[in-house]
């Protein structure tokens, strides 16, 4: 029995990450792995909903606040829409129109408050697409890609992590490096006071204590410089050293995230929550799901219902080959293996983008009208997933 106490203490040490014996470390690893799925977050919305349900007498009063907030938000949207539709001055209209194209941009961002950075890449003022790299004195700091549908990927050098999110709002800090200052510039156009100054227009807009001055070229109507001032003191300046309007369509490579070997991939929901697997339960195949039949290449299908942060998925595994059916939230196992698409082809009812991961994994992403399917293979045979995705059938 004393040995048991010794082992219990040893296990405690192993759980704390300290030196411990083999058995204690083995048991600690099992316990940590088993506890991991239970370490999920309860969202603020879930908590507030439950609190209201438990204390019903407060319900009426508390509902007033969201209602007022909703009215306020609706009023703000209406005002914003009215402002957007109000014809601006000639300068504002021409400047906004000038940005309605794809540009190759190089910006120098200088401020006494933070280290100097340079931003370069492509920005499409018409569709909102962007692909920019931010560099500091020690080289590349980050790379951000914003797709036409608003989804965004951001790689950070400091953590070698790529974060994927359905919109810039979900990312901490938004997509300032990709959309600002051009986006800020466009918004400024709607509100600014315009004056003329030696070959340029200067647009000024004040927001609280901060004054923003945009210098616009009188010939091209493109921004040259944006300056932020507080109490007359310059707090930041962005200088556009290159702003090249692209004459023809820009190649797909220009909008693709570069390869970052070994980068960890994190996916966020629209609310900024990290997408995690919350629960996995064995289950039966839902009608209409796409799979490879009850057996594929001699391996039986194993079906699991997977609950993710913000969505659900069905996972059908055939040994090392896995078929995922999902709707809006992409399963982390798929996101982790995705790279730039190297093969795009049609299959009945859908289109497939295949990408190869550095570790030999392959993802064949198929988009159908009714939903999305990804075939993932870690077998090392690149054609495995590509072959399988063409044999998908709908479950009866």
């Amino acid at each position, binding site marked *: 029995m004393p040995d048991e106490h010794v082992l219990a203490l040893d296990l405690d040490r192993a759980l704390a990450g300290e030196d411990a014996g083999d058995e204690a470390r083995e048991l600690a690893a099992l316990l940590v792995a088993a506890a991991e799925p239970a370490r999920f977050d309860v969202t603020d919305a879930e908590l507030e909903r439950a*609190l209201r349900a438990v204390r019903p007498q407060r319900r009426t009063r508390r509902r007033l606040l969201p209602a007022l907030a909703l009215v306020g938000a609706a009023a703000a949207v209406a005002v914003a829409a009215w402002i957007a539709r109000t014809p601006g001055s000639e300068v504002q209209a021409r400047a906004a129109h000038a940005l309605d194209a794809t540009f190759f941009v190089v910006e120098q961002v200088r401020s006494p408050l933070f280290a100097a950075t340079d931003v370069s890449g492509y920005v499409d003022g018409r569709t909102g697409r962007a692909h920019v790299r931010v560099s500091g004195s020690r080289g590349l700091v980050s790379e951000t890609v914003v797709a036409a549908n608003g989804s965004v990927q951001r790689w950070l050098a400091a953590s070698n992590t790529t974060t994927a999110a359905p919109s810039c709002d979900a990312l901490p800090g938004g997509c300032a490096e990709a959309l600002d200052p051009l986006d800020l510039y466009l918004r400024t156009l709607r509100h600014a006071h315009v004056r003329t100054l030696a070959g340029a227009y200067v647009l000024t807009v004040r927001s609280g204590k901060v004054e923003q001055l945009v210098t616009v070229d009188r010939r091209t109507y493109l921004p040259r410089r944006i300056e932020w001032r507080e109490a007359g003191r310059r707090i930041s300046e962005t200088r556009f050293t290159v702003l090249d309007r692209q004459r023809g369509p820009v190649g797909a490579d220009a909008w693709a995230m570069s390869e970052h070997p070994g980068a960890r991939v994190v996916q966020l929901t629209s609310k900024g929550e990290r997408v995690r697997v919350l629960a996995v339960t064995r289950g039966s195949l839902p009608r209409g799901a796409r799979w490879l039949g009850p057996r594929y290449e001699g391996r039986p299908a*194993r079906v699991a219902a997977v609950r993710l942060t913000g969505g659900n998925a069905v996972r059908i595994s055939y040994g090392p080959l896995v078929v995922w059916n999902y709707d809006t939230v992409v399963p982390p196992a798929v996101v982790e293996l995705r790279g730039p698409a190297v093969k795009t082809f049609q299959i009945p009812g859908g289109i497939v983008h295949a990408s190869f991961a550095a570790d030999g994994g392959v993802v064949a992403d198929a988009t159908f009208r009714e939903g999305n399917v990804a075939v993932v293979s870690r077998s090392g045979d690149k054609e495995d997933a590509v072959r399988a995705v063409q044999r998908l059938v709908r479950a009866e």
Partner: protein
Amino acid sequence: MEEGLDAYRVFRREQGDFEALFRAHYPEIVRYLAVRLGSRDDALDLASEVFAEAWRRVPGLQWRGRPVRAWLYRVSANMAADELKRRARTSTVRDVEDDDASVVDDVDTRLALTEALRTLTPEHQLVVHLRLVEGLPFEDVARVMNRSVAACQMLMLRAARSLRAALQAEGVRGA
């Protein structure tokens, strides 16, 4: 002595401020119940019932040297047990496929781990939950479970061994 006095003050504060009590402990009760019931949605619902009970009964609790949290876990454990009994009576059928697949990847292992965790006794589940999910030190685990620290450490060891045995029975490699 000071520690006891602090614990008493926390008890009184939580007893007198239901909203603070709710905000502080609702998420951990949901997480605990999710493992017991095998469903996050069910856990959210049942945790609300636990706190509805707390709304009625916590103001009348007598100080017995244990935090309000201990009472919450006790009620949660009882309610979870009732719910599981009710489910057993209504005979829920789970569609689990038997197959001879030899490859166990991450999700399969996870599935096995989750199911193995659910096979542990409520006491083993609670010690794992408090120490490893909520990250409480064993001293706090001991207060919630009304046991000594050594007893809780021993419970953890037994929980780990049970988990290993359950996984080995499932044929999970490395278990």
